[in-house]
């Protein structure tokens, strides 16, 4: 029986070796290890053996069984791996083919700039306020120290709807409205972005509609050096840490003193080039200390409170920052233009 088992083992292992598919391998398993298989047959015949032989043959039979089973498992793993490999090889794709596109959109460049500026001032403790685009003469002009017949009204050509109602020419009326609401009872630290309108003929550098962001900080003991500090931080974050700012005198009816802020030209680093008209400086915004009459009209005591205000044009800033050569691009909405600024 021993010889018989050993012969069976040899035979079975050979068949395992020869099997080339999982099916063949399964046949071998059934043939040799199944209930009707030869090894089982051998074991069935064990009753005829002597007491001494029984455990020896039994052990041998189990060993043979084990070895055949192990060989089958190992062969099976091998075949499975080969088949998987074959399947995977067949599944190979051309990864250089184009992907399935997803529709992509993005913000308007002006929105990106406005939000960037908003976030920057929010970081300095400012809140964002909004107001109507159609304003009263009072809030657009009079509350800002621009009485009717004031020569400075010429600086801003206005779209009137009636004598008293107009398209706002700046977002400063939002400041006047906010201060009026607070009635001089506490400090105000705000920026107001929005659309504004002027009687201009549209060309490369003028638009009858454009965007403005104005800022206001009114509190006890606000100093002009604070204005300079805040604007310097703004300029450096917006245009780069190596930008310098300078203030020079200007005039706005709602501030006194009034200044304009220039930043050193990025193109030539202040050396003078065609972008900065050889001055080394580029005008970015207007600012100043809030005029005491404006404070008074809004209910603040100018002896106790002081403040600064500033105003800038995101259109112009976008043009400078991204080299946009025509302001009309912002309002034409050519998809090719818009998409250029969708990248973060």
């Amino acid at each position, binding site marked *: 029986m021993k010889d018989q088992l050993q012969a069976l083992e040899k035979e079975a292992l050979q068949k395992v070796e020869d099997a080339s598919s999982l099916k063949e391998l399964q046949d071998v398993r059934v043939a040799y290890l199944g209930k009707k298989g030869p090894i089982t047959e051998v074991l069935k015949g064990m009753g005829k053996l002597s007491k001494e032989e029984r455990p020896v043959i039994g052990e041998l039979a189990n060993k043979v069984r084990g070895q055949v089973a192990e060989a089958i498992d190992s062969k099976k793993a091998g075949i499975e791996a080969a088949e998987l490999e074959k399947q995977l090889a067949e599944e190979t794709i051309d990864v250089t083919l184009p992907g399935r596109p997803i*529709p992509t*959109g993005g913000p308007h460049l002006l929105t990106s700039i406005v939000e960037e500026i908003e976030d920057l001032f929010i970081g300095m403790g400012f809140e964002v306020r909004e107001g109507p685009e159609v304003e009263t003469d009072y809030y657009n002009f009079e509350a800002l120290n621009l009485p009717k017949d004031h020569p400075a009204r010429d600086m801003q050509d206005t779209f009137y709807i009636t004598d008293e109602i107009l398209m706002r020419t700046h977002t400063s009326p939002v400041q006047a409205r906010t201060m009026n609401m607070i009635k001089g009872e506490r400090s105000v630290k705000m920026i107001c972005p929005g659309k504004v*309108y002027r009687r201009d003929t549209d060309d490369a550098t003028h638009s009858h509609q454009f965007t403005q962001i104005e800022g206001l900080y009114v509190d006890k003991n606000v100093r002009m050096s604070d204005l300079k500090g805040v604007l310097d931080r703004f300029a450096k974050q917006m245009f780069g840490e190596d930008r310098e700012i300078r203030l020079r005198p200007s*005039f706005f009816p709602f501030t006194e003193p009034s200044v304009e802020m220039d930043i050193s030209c990025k193109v030539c680093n202040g050396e003078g080039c065609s972008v900065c008209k050889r001055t080394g400086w580029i005008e970015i915004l207007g600012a100043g*200390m809030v005029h005491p009459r404006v404070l008074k009209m809004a209910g603040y005591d100018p002896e106790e409170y002081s403040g600064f205000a500033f105003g800038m044009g995101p259109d112009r800033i976008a043009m400078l920052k991204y080299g946009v050569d025509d302001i009309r691009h912002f309002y034409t909405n050519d998809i090719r233009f818009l998409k250029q600024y969708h990248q973060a």
Partner: protein
Amino acid sequence: MFVSINWLKNYVDIDQISPEDLAERITKTGIEVDGLERFANKVNNVVVGYVEACEKHPNADKLNLCQVNVGEETLQIICGAPNIAKGQKVAVAKPGAVLPGNFKIKKAKLRGVESNGMICSLQELGVEEKFVPKEFANGIFVFPEDAETGTDVTELLNLDDIIIELDLTPNRSDALSMLGVAYEVAAILDVPIRLPHTNYHAAEEKTEDHVSVKVEASEQNPYYGAFLVKDVKVGTSPLWMRNYLMAAGIRPINNVVDITNYVLLEYGQPLHAFDYDKFGSTEVVVRMANEGETIVTLDDQERTLSSEHLVITNGKEPVALAGVMGGADTEVSDQTTSVLLEAAYFDGKTVRKASKEFDLRSEASTRFEKGVDPNRVRKAGEKACLLLEKYAGATVLAGISEFDQLEYSEKTVTIWTSTINARLGTDISNEEIADILRKLHFNFEQDDETFTVYAPTRRQDIVIFEDMLEEVARIYGYDNLPFTLPSGGSQAGGLTKQQELKRHVKRFLEGAGLSETVTYSLTTKDRATQLISPEVAKDLVSTVSLAMPMSEEHSTLRLSLLPEMLASVAYNLARKQSNVAYYELGSIFISKEEKVSQQPEEKLRLAGALTGEWLTHPWQQEKKSVDFFVVKGILEALFDSLSVKVNFVQEKVDGMHPGRTACLYIGDRAIGFAGQIHPQVQKEYDLKDTFVFDIDFDYILEVHENEPSFAGIPRYPSVTRDIALVVDETVQAGAIQATIAEAGGELVKDIQVFDVYQGEHLTEGKKSIAFSLFYQDPSRTLTDEEVEASYQAILAAVADQHQAELRG
């Protein structure tokens, strides 16, 4: 204001600083310099020549053969100018000279005759045509007789002058005069200022014997001074004066006009010269015009006046529109011998009104509008008399006939060093402040840190403390202010919930594939009334239009974002950009009045327009054009993200495809619409199939629930049952779904349409809709019985309400 450096040098020493540096200092300290330009260019080898002989060229009719003495030699030069003549002093470019435009002068032969140079016009020397005196405009320039032969013309013609162009802000009208600029420069550079004298020789004869002055409108005309000059010889003004005028951008005319212009520029005080013999009386009466009264002004236009216009009259009729323009009848001409010279102070508002109304802005009116210096009115008249005496051979009569109620005193402003420092954030000393005031030539009294400043009348802009704060700050230098950050309250900045929500919506739509647009709020009257959402149109009374639009194109406020957006889409289609997906968040303007008397209501709308292909992926055979459901899918996802429940109800909207448009509702409240643009409207806009939406965003902000609460993750399995129903083709899926939801009970958590079929295997006029129903109970596992019960209830309900049959 154009400031000639050479002219300026008469009042302040600026030789130690380059014009570029000076311009930079002026810009940084007070007035923005807009540009720095050379008047012309320095030329070499161009000298004054004396035309000793001038004959016709032997071979050419239009040319002359001249012998010109240029100092050390006499040159034979051929000249084609019509005004060349023997005895003239002219500008001669000698061989070797290089004229503007790199025009090199060489010896040449013209029609067989040698020519050794060129006699020049001012234009050829680089002077702008518009400044060249008319008499020389079409020929060569002729020097006054006293020009020395052989002298270089560069200096003589002021060709090397540099012009600083000042961009004046409305408060700095003091710099509308050379003296004002001189004070500014003196303060900046801390150099002394030299003021011109005005002493003329008065004749014995008295002005008051020939002219009287009466002012009936003293508020509008607090000062009127009349000077009388006789024996005037109208002619050419001196070369230096003409040079300065040209440099300042004014074309020389004749000595009388040039002198009034020169004084205007020097003092900032406009003057007017009347021909005394044509004045028509011996009395000057200043009054408000009579309603309907007329005057023919210098530009030969008849102007009809009203009682708001101030006029100078001869007691009978107007002879000038005060401060704006003189009358044609009394204009100074070549024949004028006696001049009545007006030096007056006219109220700015009155002048502004007239100049604006008649569109007659001039150097004179601009200055009156901004307010002239009371202390220079009479002085300017005196200076003009001095110049007329010197350069027009005039005899100036003694005294001035005048009306005078003008306020001459200086305003006092008190400043304190400590307050200045507190406002600027500086540490300026009392001494520094005193020094700044001295540089500015402001009189003041000092008591320790208190300064009482007497603001000179030339600086009408200085009235209150803050005005002086600015003076101190700018002379101290803004560069010298420290950088500080506000010390006051550390309030946290941030966006409001609504502002954050706006950003969320923008990012969401951008992520969904839409590009943001910004379109104009002002549109055409037509477009303003198109595609208005029904809930907006409902209580609309009229559109809001500008009183005086620049063009019809931008005349009326929009009531929908869509028309301008569609125009943008069409713009892209016309440029072969056929796939466009846009959204915009912006205001519309609703007035509920027939005639606007209040601000219109501004409502924030969220609108979008999509056209072309939504997805193109050719090699995997995927292609999807934009359709209603693309738009609806985006909106549904958006509303989901905002946790608002919006219903789409099939309705008709003007301008929209009648079968492919839905109105949107939150509960009973209409909030906008979505759908396809009506094919006819698409055609008008040059569009292909375009799908749009327009939503009341203010309302979304209002109803949006902010903080979502945690609902837990379901722990028990859900059961899915599918149900396919056959119904009439007119029955809407939404209606069936509503019935299912109601009949199915609380256990039905979600209902999804997974198939819609019409055609073969179905009776005509019928369609089949298949739904997946998701049952779930968060607290336990469902039994088959309860799901089945719900399912049967649903079947009964849809059969009852929609005659729906289970598809076999």
